[in-house]
């Protein structure tokens, strides 16, 4: 079995969520690697949209740590305003996006702002950036985060990026035009969402992980998919690609 760490598996799982030809709103860190991996394997026609005003349909010619790094501008398809990118997103032209979080709950709501909530701040985190917009406006979004019990809570302290709120019908009720999370890719497995209840369903276990492991790190009672599967490990080719995009291991090792 090829040697890999959980972040490699998360990148591979993220890549597999992207279909060829899709318009992907790309964030930094593992999602960026996932997008690059998809582009260089099964989704060569995927187009990447970056909130700072970049659209690319080609790989950057050198590794990048932020979306503003100059290789990400080189031979871009479009360099423009943030408002132009947000227009693509708000008008429904973005198929899929990826976001991380510090806390998530069983309806896929994310907190990256206030641990403890606004009134009783224990830890102030950086905030939304574009995450709230991606969660509000992409046709679907994928959450990627480390699986720890303090992060997987029955209810987040604050909703930075809306998932399904308090359950079915919530997004329509508050006025969000579309979308919602379609998966949570964690260090232990992959959740999807029950269309009826809008709650997480464990759909895949990473290699070597048991349902009990996942339950031990999840703050709500697990529901299991009828066809619960085992996440295929990264292939040697996938790992080689990831090493090309993250040669120093800056992003993949950060999650160890």
């Amino acid at each position, binding site marked *: 079995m090829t040697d890999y760490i959980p972040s490699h598996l998360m990148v591979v799982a993220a890549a597999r969520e992207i279909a060829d030809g899709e318009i992907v709103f790309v964030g*930094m860190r593992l999602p960026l690697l996932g997008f690059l991996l998809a582009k260089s394997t099964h989704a060569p026609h995927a187009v990447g949209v*970056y*909130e*700072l*005003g*970049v659209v690319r349909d080609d790989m950057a*010619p050198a590794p990048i*740590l*932020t*979306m*503003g*790094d*100059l290789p990400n*501008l*080189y*031979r871009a398809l479009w*360099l*423009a*305003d*943030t*408002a132009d990118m*947000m227009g693509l*997103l*708000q008008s429904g032209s973005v198929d899929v996006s990826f976001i991380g979080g510090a806390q998530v709950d069983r309806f896929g709501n994310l*907190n990256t*702002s*206030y641990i403890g909530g*606004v009134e009783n*701040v*224990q*830890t*102030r*985190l*950086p*905030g*939304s*950036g*574009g*995450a*709230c*917009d991606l969660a*509000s*406006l992409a046709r679907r979004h994928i959450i990627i985060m480390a699986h720890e019990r303090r992060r997987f809570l029955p209810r987040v302290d*604050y*909703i*930075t*990026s*809306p998932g399904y*709120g308090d359950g079915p019908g*919530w*997004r329509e*009720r*508050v*006025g*969000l*035009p579309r979308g919602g999370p379609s998966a949570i890719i964690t260090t232990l497995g992959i959740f999807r969402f029950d269309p009826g209840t809008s709650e997480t369903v464990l759909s895949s276990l990473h290699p070597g992980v048991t349902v009990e492991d996942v339950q031990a790190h999840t703050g709500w009672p697990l529901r299991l998919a009828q066809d619960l599967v085992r996440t295929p490990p990264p292939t040697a080719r996938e790992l080689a690609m990831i090493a090309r995009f993250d040669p120093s291991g*800056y992003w993949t090792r950060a999650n160890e």
Partner: protein
Amino acid sequence: MCRGFFTSVERMSTSKLISLSEAIGRFVPDGSSVAAGLGLEASIPFAAGHEIMRQRKRGLGLIGPISDMLFDQMIGAGCVHRVQAAWVGNVITGSGYNFRRAVESGALRVEDHSNLTIAMALKAAAMGVSFMPVRTALGSGLFVAHPGLKPIACPFTGTPLAAVAAIAPDVALIHVQRADESGSAHVWGNLGVMRDACLAARHVVITAEEIVPAAVIVSDPNRVIIPGFRVSAVCHVPWGAHPAPVAGCYNRDHRAFIEYRNASRTPEAFVRWQERWVDTPKSRDDYLRLLGAERMSELVLRNHLFPAPVDYGY
């Protein structure tokens, strides 16, 4: 939104080329609202921000989508009373520790935005209207006690929307590749919210890699980010965005961001960082000497890409 603030100085194409310290001294009084980091990860006006810290400005309001670590530095230096932003931290390392401490202690007021809401708040002011409608953030925590966001219904369709109140900064700080003495400036690369922020702001202060004759600017009017008559001051500051990247000029200096993470974990360490990188260098030239020629040479462009020609003739 009605503004009658052009001075004749700003209108005339006389030179607005002054030193950065004079520009910050004149156009960023204590208590100002200051928009910066308007190109997001790119072209962040670090030199201008450091000059604000050096001059011990107080009570500022900061406005921007994300500012990478610049806002954290200005907060750590005690310049900041209030932040209207989508994200404050250090893009490649995560948390901004000064920001965290200031919020957790209650010393800093924060108006949380998303990138879309802050972009539209600036666009509203740029367009001269008091609000803009958006479809984002509905149901999120951003609406909790936010003076600048309100749920509304579309007057035509009845669809739920959010209204974002206009934000007109007192001053927008931008770093550009080149400008002429009147303030007309070229920017290429990703544009972020630079243009709308400049059109929204009462004053625009430009730091430029290069000061060029007006003929260079008018040779390519589509690259003008803002015409000179909307600009208050132009400062010649090569490497003025370091360690952020600037298209056509230099790459991102990741090391500075990683070092800053460690240098900002405690208030004491931050004081030492500020002493070394902001207060001791009296100018950007001093800062660049401290940075060193070798490190700078690692950041210069090694692969070039020149555009296909166009013709603006008649």
